[in-house]
């Protein structure tokens, strides 16, 4: 059986390992446009301030010592499902019996003047991180455009190198996908106490440059911030352009069934380039989560190996991190104005907890500070557990835990 996998990150390698384990007869070709070895993408911020070296962020198990697997450092530029073949940028082609698309997502580049100036970077892969680390030599002021999770993680790493750092976020608060207004306020305060400058409700309108070298950012509010290094962290978009003529159904991202098969037979997709069905909000959305990529990659791997498997319920909001020294775990619905839901909040010192219920179902939660036992409750959300009479006791259990 000939397998072709496009992409070289977590969704791709998870599927690869499942296929290797289940199909002794597999001949697998992997096409990845980033050089080997594979690495943990979420750890690249730690390269910026040298708190991790490259070796420390590489996959602990590289799938390379298997003669059934052949790697191409190349880019897939198109899929022809009729001929069961993909085209590569180098001019060659690969034929497949089963194809996995796991090309992830790329940085969205804001459409403003000056983005091509020197000193302006997007930052989503290891190469870019190493370039930014170089550029940091002698840098005094840095601006991060985009205050979502990846932007704030980069900002914290840059801050640790000693530069003066400003974050610009066009929404009303930073961390829009993992926090509500109250938690974002608490985390912003922490970051500001630590010397970071945050401009929310404001957006970058122009990158100012002298002789092609960036010197600052002009904001919608009219303010200008001087900077010798600017990171564009204004979100990501799924890598689906190369599928334009393939006939594969795409909405905001690739559409699949619960076996991870696309609208075209024998073509599967997994990871950030797939539109998921969010188990809580009930809508099809794009998610950019590591765990979702693992689940999708594993499910695709089994089905491609001929073992039927369905992807478990997924959420587009399912995050855990630590920011400004404050842990935060959040899942499901984080904010609502609708009276259809019951919302409970509790604050105790630096700790804050919020629960959102739809009747007797927990549909959203935020734990800030004390995150102990969070998984017990995120699993109630993910699996849409009906709590019945136990609901009130659960609220008491979660909130009172802040007091002992």
């Amino acid at each position: 059986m000939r397998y072709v996998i496009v992409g070289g990150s977590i969704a791709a390698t998870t599927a690869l390992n499942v296929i290797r384990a289940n199909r002794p007869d597999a001949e697998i070709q992997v096409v990845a446009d980033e050089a080997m070895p594979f690495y943990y993408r979420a750890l690249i911020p730690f390269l910026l301030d040298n708190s991790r070296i490259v070796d420390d962020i590489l996959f602990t198990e590289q799938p390379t010592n298997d003669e059934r697997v052949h790697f191409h450092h190349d880019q897939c530029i198109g899929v022809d499902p009729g001929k069961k073949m993909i085209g590569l940028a180098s001019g060659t082609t690969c034929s497949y019996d089963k194809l996995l698309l796991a090309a992830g997502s790329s940085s969205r580049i804001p459409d403003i003047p000056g983005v091509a100036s020197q000193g302006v970077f997007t930052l989503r892969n290891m190469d870019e991180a190493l370039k930014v680390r170089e550029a940091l030599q002698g840098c005094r002021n840095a601006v991060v455009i985009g205050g979502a999770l990846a932007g704030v993680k980069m900002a914290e790493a840059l801050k640790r190198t000693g530069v003066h750092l400003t974050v610009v976020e066009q929404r009303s608060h930073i961390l829009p996908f993992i926090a509500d207004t109250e938690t974002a306020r608490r985390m912003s305060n922490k970051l500001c106490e630590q010397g970071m400058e945050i401009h929310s409700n404001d957006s970058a309108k122009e990158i100012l440059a002298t002789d092609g070298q960036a010197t600052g950012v002009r904001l919608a509010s009219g303010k200008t911030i001087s900077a010798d290094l600017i990171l564009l962290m204004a979100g990501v978009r799924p890598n689906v352009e190369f599928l334009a003529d393939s006939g594969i159904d795409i909405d905001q991202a690739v559409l699949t069934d619960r076996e991870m098969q696309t609208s075209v037979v024998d073509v599967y997709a997994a990871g950030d380039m797939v539109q998921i069905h969010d188990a809580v909000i009930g809508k099809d959305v794009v998610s950019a989560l590591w765990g979702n990529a693992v689940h999708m990659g594993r499910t695709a791997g089994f089905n491609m190996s001929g073992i039927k498997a369905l992807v478990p319920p997924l959420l587009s909001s399912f995050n855990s991190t630590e920011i400004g020294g404050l842990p935060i775990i959040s899942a499901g619905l984080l904010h609502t104005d609708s009276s259809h839901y019951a919302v409970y909040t509790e604050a105790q010192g630096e700790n804050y907890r919020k629960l959102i219920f739809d009747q007797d179902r927990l549909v959203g939660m935020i734990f800030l500070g004390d995150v102990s036992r969070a998984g017990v409750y995120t699993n109630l959300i993910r699996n849409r557990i009906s709590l019945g009479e136990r609901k009130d006791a659960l609220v008491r259990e979660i909130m009172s835990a802040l007091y002992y």
Partner: protein
Amino acid sequence: MEVIYVQADKCLGCKTCEIECRIAHAEENHAEKKTLLAAISQVRPPKRRLFVEQGEIGKTPVICRHCEEAPCIVDCISGSIYRDEQGFVRRKKERCMGCWSCIMACPFGVVVRDAEAHIAVKCDHCPDLETPACVAGCPTRALQLVDVDSLPLERRKELLLKKGG
């Protein structure tokens, strides 16, 4: 594979298992004298990795089940959580960067945050001991080692569901 089997009705709530767990996980340089005193007099006393909690019929120890499709492995973004050769779910200390995704993922709430060391802490099934410390310490044998592979499938399923209390 041997797993820890919990019989909730035998638990007295004495927390000997928690104490034995802390002692067994005292810092390496104290290894030659693993006693309660040595454990608690460490600069940072070791965290317990199992928890005696109020269950439906009284106190019961809650412990890592070394899940088959372990959610903590799925969500760990650094490769820190892995399955060892014996099949137990472990955490590589030096890889962990304190993102707490494993705490977000574990449905049993048995991964804890070591805030000072900034790493996640979980049951490692005491790889250096013949019998895990909690099992060895339990005075009523509410915690026992059971070899799941030697059991008939039906019994095994039942056990895996009940395991951990």
